[in-house]
């Protein structure tokens, strides 16, 4: 999957978690804009991990603050 396809896929996965319908851009922050708490993060990460068959460890999650960074990380992880 290229970056654009990963972007599209994650947009659809994020929908049920995006309760306020926040407009998504690469700069959308998970904590600040989407207001994800730690439990939501866990469920959301699990969805992505299962969809792409990857692991996003907590160490990696700590580096991912916005939507664009997540798309980049997943694009990279699914190729490795």
């Amino acid at each position, binding site marked *: 999957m290229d970056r654009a396809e990963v972007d599209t896929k994650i947009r659809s996965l994020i929908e049920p978690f995006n309760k306020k319908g926040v407009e998504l851009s690469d700069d959308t922050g998970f904590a600040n804009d989407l207001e994800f708490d730690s*439990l939501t993060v*866990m469920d959301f990460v*699990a969805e992505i991990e299962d969809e792409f068959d990857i692991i996003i460890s*907590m160490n990696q999650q700590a580096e991912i603050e916005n939507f664009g960074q997540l798309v980049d990380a997943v694009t990279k992880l699914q190729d490795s």
Partner: protein
Amino acid sequence: MSEGISQPDQPQELEGGPKDLFSKFDDIIALREGLLSQGQEDPFSLVMERVLSPTRAICNGRDTILLGTYNYMGMTFDPDVIEAGKQALADYGTGTTGSRVLNGTYQGHKECEDALREFYDMDHAMVFSTGYQANLGIISTIAGKGDYIVLDIDSHASIWDGCALGNAEVVPFKHNDIDAMEKRLRRIPEGAGKLVILEGVYSMLGDIAPLKEMVAIAKKYGAMVLVDEAHSMGFIGDNGRGVVEQAGVMEDVDFIIGTFSKSVGTVGGFCVSNHPKFEIMRLVCRPYVFTASLPPSVVATAATSIRKLMHGSNKRAHLWENSKRLHGGLSNLGFQLGTDEAQSAIVAVIMPDLEKGAAMWEALLKEGLYVNLARPPATPANMTLLRCSLCAEHSEEEVETILGMFERAGKAVGII
């Protein structure tokens, strides 16, 4: 403060003082002040002025039944245990003033480790100064950079801190979810070191892990397995070895971590293992090396208590009866509980919110009952819980008294 900086044209200080490193705690300070301003007794500043027995104390001036300690087997006032402590205090003094690897290993420390080896029927035992340090030390030492730790999301703080200290890749899975655990193990890159960390009893809700299935899967993927049995030692399993014993997976678990501060009735932590190279831990595990060892009286009481727990089957049976009686009774009264049936000596009563939880806690304290108030972030799913932990020394009548207290307090606060 010099006069120069308190001039009238200076900007007003924000409420709560100037911004500094403590500003990050402002939310929690406000939350606490909010609770106390409603006239609540502070749930986190209770003082036990006198302790009468494993199950009774004078708390804030009231004779109180203790239902919120981890004194599961009631060993704290056992005459043999107390005598062993007094003797060690007289023979070896008040403290070791040194690390286990320097001048801090006395005869008592070896005897305590011997008692643990016999209790678990395992080859190696290593005693730490607290249970927290046992998890911190073992986990951070065996799982380092590049290794993977797969663990339950509801793991105890000491486990998370051990993961962070070791700098391993940390991969949590949904609480007690066998499939979620397997998926994560399957995706770990080939050749990477793998450690699965589980707890026998999860202390917030008092539920147990499906260890039979989980340990089998961990082994299938070539992972080492560490199980924290802090809340099950002495009570669960035919010999009190924990959920690992009850599930029949002693042989497949690489490390059991435990504590002396619960059923054993004193303080300290340990790890037992059959790993042939385990003894090297004594030299490479920093939370073991760089701290003073336990005082002689503490290891003497621990060793005596552990040996008595080996023969505690009658007490174990009575504790199960207590746990089932309390669980059934609270359930019948209409309280919402953390588990459908009693799985351990912990019965967690789920509160609608923190305010009601604090009010209920206070109402119970005024009835003469102490339970643990547990609240986010220590609790799963941001729940507020009243955690009841039973003791083998609670009598059947006491459990009935406790149920009466819950009924009155619950009605007064409007929870049932």
